[in-house]
């Protein structure tokens, strides 16, 4: 739990976006970083290649063992047709099937916690998913095919052209703000992070009703929302070393140090009273961003 929570603020501000739902609620989303997407693609390729190879081997064994085919005949022909069509269709089937599913992500994307979404905040359309996958062919599979063809054939300038072709599209996401690849651009989609955040327990339940420590107005006026958030994280992580250090810092700052050994209680009380104060001010439209404001 704590690690999922701690990761919330990790995303750099550059990749944060807001989408507006049809209800008018703005939801923060984080664009998936380039590295994550490359990782997801590699995972997908591994999964996909393994599955394809297994199926092709099964087809081949079926031809050789079960039907005893070595030289032709209609059955062998049928299996070859099946193999060619399978090779063509499988990569579309793989990506389309998973991206159209309720998670909007291929297994690779899912493992790394990202998914595709419509850029306009509306419904993700089937056409969009098809469009972005048609482009994937052009961005990824075709230049490689071309590259190896050129390598075994003419070589030289064609190999270079294929490499340039591949590199342009491979690094395309780095040259736009939303980390879109060519297919995303055409489909009107983007790839965002999906984290499953669990609901942590309510903070003020852990604190005793009367409170062991009482802090005055002046002491609570020192800190703002940012420090409150940090303190919340420290309390939830519950690392005794960190608790001691934070309690010491706060104690020095406000001039009311905690007795050694009871840092957690001290910090909990301070947290609850600081939050009560900041939330009260919030209701009156006064917000204090951090200790400097």
């Amino acid at each position, binding site marked *: 739990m704590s690690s999922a929570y701690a990761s919330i603020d990790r995303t750099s501000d550059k990749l944060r976006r807001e989408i507006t739902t049809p209800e008018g609620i703005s939801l923060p989303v984080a664009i998936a970083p380039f590295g994550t997407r490359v990782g997801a693609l590699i995972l997908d390729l591994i999964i996909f290649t393994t599955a394809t190879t297994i199926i092709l081997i099964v087809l081949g064994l079926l031809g050789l063992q079960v039907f005893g085919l070595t030289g032709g005949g209609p059955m062998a022909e049928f299996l070859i047709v099946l193999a060619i069509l399978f090779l063509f269709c499988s990569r579309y089937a793989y990506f389309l099937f998973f991206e159209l599913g309720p998670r909007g992500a291929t297994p690779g994307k899912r493992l790394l916690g990202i998914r595709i979404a419509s850029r306009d905040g509306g419904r993700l*359309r089937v056409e969009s998913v098809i469009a972005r996958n048609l482009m994937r062919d052009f961005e990824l599979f075709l230049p490689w095919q071309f590259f190896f063809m050129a390598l075994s054939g003419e070589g030289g300038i064609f190999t270079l052209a294929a490499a340039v072709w591949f590199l342009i599209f491979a690094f395309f996401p780095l040259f736009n703000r939303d980390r879109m690849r060519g297919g995303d651009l055409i489909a009107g989609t983007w790839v965002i992070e999906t984290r499953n955040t669990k609901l942590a327990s309510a*903070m003020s339940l852990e604190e005793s009703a009367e409170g062991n420590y009482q802090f005055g107005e002046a002491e609570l006026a020192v800190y703002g929302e940012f420090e409150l958030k940090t303190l919340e994280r420290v309390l939830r992580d519950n690392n005794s070393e960190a608790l001691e250090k934070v309690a010491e810092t706060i104690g020095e700052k406000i001039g009311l140090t905690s007795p050694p050994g009871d840092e957690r209680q001290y910090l909990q009380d301070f947290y609850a009273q600081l939050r009560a104060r900041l939330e009260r001010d919030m209701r009156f439209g006064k917000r204090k961003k951090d200790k400097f404001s």
Partner: protein
Amino acid sequence: MKPLTRLFRKAEAEAPADIEAASLRSDRFRLERETDWRRLERIVTELEKNRTRRLTDEDVLDLPVLYRSAASSLAVARETSLDASTLAYLETLVRRAWFQIYGPRSSLWDWLRRFFGGGWSASVRAIWLDICIALAVMSAGVLVGWLLTAQDSDWYNALVPGGLAGARHPGAERAVLEQSLQGASNSNGLSVFASYLFSNNATVCILAFALGFAFGIPSLLMLVYNLAGLGAMLWLFHDAGLTVDFIAWLSIHGTTELFAILLAGAAGLHIGRSMALPGNRSIMTAIAESGRRTAQVMVGVVLMLIVAALLEGFARQLIDNTPGRFAIGGTMLAFWLLYFFAFRRKGAGGEA
């Protein structure tokens, strides 16, 4: 506080009855609504895992209500609560629910039904201007190929790839050329040939579509290049006095295949055109709109190529009289034209 009581209180927090125990108003707000949030989370999780059978009718009916209330909780919490973890939880929850409610509603099969029932033809009609341009470019390509080869037959080798030409090269005997238009005596290996043709043509079409990305110019160049080869071959057979036979040989699958290539080129051009001339929309919106529209066209193109490959692999080799070939090719062309331009269903393709 004693560890034992803390343990006790934690257990209580799971059952949200202990609302009064929370000293903070924002925590009470949260505890009051927590049950609904958790229920929404459960429904969404089941939906994500595609286990709809585990959900009761009540769950499904309540989903939009729960979603809206969670969304409004989020809006309120943002203004009243400083509990970062609750806010983060609510944001994730609302986002996940939003994806389920506004996710792709139709399954692939539903989509395919709508696609055949009018979505495809509507999207083809929507890019009519690009189809006209692509058709003009393709005709120009044939003409260029013809004229170049007529002037200097060396051009033939440059325009027609060696593997495709086979015995059909300039200076070949008329009998050899005629032979190359004959059907095969048996059907062995034809299906392999057909499936090979299909994946090859599909790659070319996807390339023509994707090259629309570069303002559509490469798509047009590809059309010119591919059709120039056709023009060159046409000249070759014309020179041997076999024009009609050649066209018949070509038309049996060519009406479908060239139509598909035409649509793919037009789709690429459509994207390129919307990038260059987005009109009142933003460029991003324009590209995304044209991308979605042409994606439908492209699915159709792939299907047409399957039909073309079957015709090329089987029908062309098995039927070797000119009128029969013309009949099949003409029927196919008429079928496509009728399907695309005469088949209109009210409301179909409205979402495209």
